[in-house]
């Protein structure tokens, strides 16, 4: 039903079930990238001729589009980066470092929300605390509150949706609780916007990281939303061209946000393409997508659940997008290789989330990532192929 909006499926017969890694791009996204390159390619924010003005306008219109999309109050709060990884590293180094004694993360974090803290010399119980989860990978909110009580000067950095398990964290509660104890909160939203709306004002979140390439947009574009009240305390991360009001050899006077955070030529084509991705979602309407995707996800869950020897790590409630599994006695890698030969694209491995894999005592999982363009037929073919792979791999 939604496949027709994506040229990829015209050119491929494979069943793409790896959207949690990156999503396919609708026609209009690719088109707007092309239009920039073919019709008005120029640098932004510097030159003042016609096409450069157009490029600047389209670029800044994307900022407005993002602002409205996540209901920010001001375009100043929208800063473009190259990825969620950069967004998280940016805030870790320009805001959290040397300011907070403790960083609190969940058990389901992606390495991008773990390793930056290690690089600051933090380790478990030594500047870094991890909130427990139960056997369904559900966030232990009581443990979280205890951690907030025990760690007075804490920063909270938590993923909205687990990329490995699709588990949705109750971030509104998390943020409220954190604020009650005076802690600021960053949310890793890499896996959110492709599936459901985010309202940063309603959430009252301090920092929210967004990925374009996982949200039907181009590669090489991320966003970090920074709540207005935090802006003064966030140092510039990279500096140089177009971040500057006045430079002598003795000192630099920086521009205001967002410009002071966006050094050098940006990924202009990518940013402009991202606006088209968000407009595409608006056209499809989240309410439709959410109903549709929830049904597919439930369908997939049920079908997988019927398989002999299946190991699932969550229930299907409060999950979206990603579903991880293993088959008793088999290696996920082997399953992935055989599925690939049957034209089914899933991802097998630790999904950049080794700590939770270690806690579960496994090397990794096979992960199915479903998106709007997947349908029941995709799931049926996947299940059939999976069964065939199991037969081949079982003695």
């Amino acid at each position: 039903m939604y496949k027709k909006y994506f040229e990829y499926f015209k050119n491929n017969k494979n069943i793409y079930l790896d959207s949690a890694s990156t999503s396919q791009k609708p026609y209009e996204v690719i088109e707007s990238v092309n239009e920039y390159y073919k019709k008005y390619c120029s640098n932004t924010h510097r030159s003042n001729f016609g096409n450069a003005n157009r490029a600047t306008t389209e670029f800044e219109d994307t900022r407005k589009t993002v602002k409205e999309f996540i209901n920010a109050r001001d375009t100043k709060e929208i800063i473009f980066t190259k990825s969620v990884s950069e967004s998280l590293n940016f805030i870790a180094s320009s805001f959290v470092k040397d300011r907070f004694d403790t960083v609190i993360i969940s058990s389901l974090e992606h390495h991008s929300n773990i390793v930056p803290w290690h690089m600051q010399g933090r380790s478990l119980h030594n500047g870094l605390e991890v909130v427990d989860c139960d056997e369904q990978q559900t966030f232990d909110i009581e443990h979280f509150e205890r951690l907030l009580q025990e760690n007075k000067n804490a920063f909270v950095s938590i993923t909205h949706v687990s990329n490995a398990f699709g588990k949705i964290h109750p971030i509104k509660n998390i943020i409220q609780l954190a604020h009650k104890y005076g802690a600021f909160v960053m949310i890793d939203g890499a896996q959110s916007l492709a599936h459901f709306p985010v309202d940063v004002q309603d959430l009252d979140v301090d920092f929210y990281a967004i990925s374009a390439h996982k949200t039907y947009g181009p590669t090489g574009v991320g966003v970090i939303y920074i709540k207005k009240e935090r802006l003064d305390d966030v140092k510039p991360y990279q500096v140089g061209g177009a971040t500057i009001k006045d430079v002598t050899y003795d000192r630099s006077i920086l521009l205001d946000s967002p410009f002071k955070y966006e050094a050098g030529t940006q990924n202009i084509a990518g940013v402009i393409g991202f606006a088209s991705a968000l407009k595409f979602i608006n056209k499809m309407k989240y309410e439709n997508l959410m109903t549709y995707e929830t049904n597919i996800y439930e369908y997939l869950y049920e079908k997988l659940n019927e398989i002999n020897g299946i190991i699932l790590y969550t229930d299907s409630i409060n999950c979206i997008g990603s579903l991880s599994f293993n088959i008793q006695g088999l290696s996920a890698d082997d399953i992935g290789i055989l599925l690939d030969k049957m034209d089914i694209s899933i991802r097998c491995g630790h999904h950049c989330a080794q700590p939770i894999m270690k806690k579960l005592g496994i090397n990794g999982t096979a992960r199915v990532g479903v998106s709007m363009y997947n349908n029941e037929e995709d799931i049926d073919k996947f299940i059939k192929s999976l069964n065939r792979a199991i037969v081949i791999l079982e003695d």
Partner: protein
Amino acid sequence: MGEIEKRIDAIKEDFELFDDEIEKYEYIVDIGRSLEPLDESEKIDKYLIEGCTSNVWLICEKRDGKLYFKTDSNTVIVRGLAAILVKIFSNLSAKEIRDFDFSLLDKLGFSEIITPTRQNGLKSMITKIVESAQGENA
């Protein structure tokens, strides 16, 4: 239609008389040239709006409950455009300015005003006009 929009439309009509962009800008150059310069003593940091390379000075005065603006610039085209803006927003109450939908300025079609470059002196000038009006109660 409010007073400000009327003024914008009038200016727009003036400019529609020209067939090509260059003649339009020749006219703006003329406006820039004929603008009475600020006294050097008025070109002080307090009134300075820094653009990338063009500087604009803007002075706001209040008389009889109305706001009046005076401007100058170191480059003639910006001077002309600044003069046009000052003409549009002078002799109005602060409320009239506050209530104005500034996106209507785009009607004029001057890319130098419209484009959101990082250091656009004219855009900053418009921001200053808004702020002047917001600072007033009337």
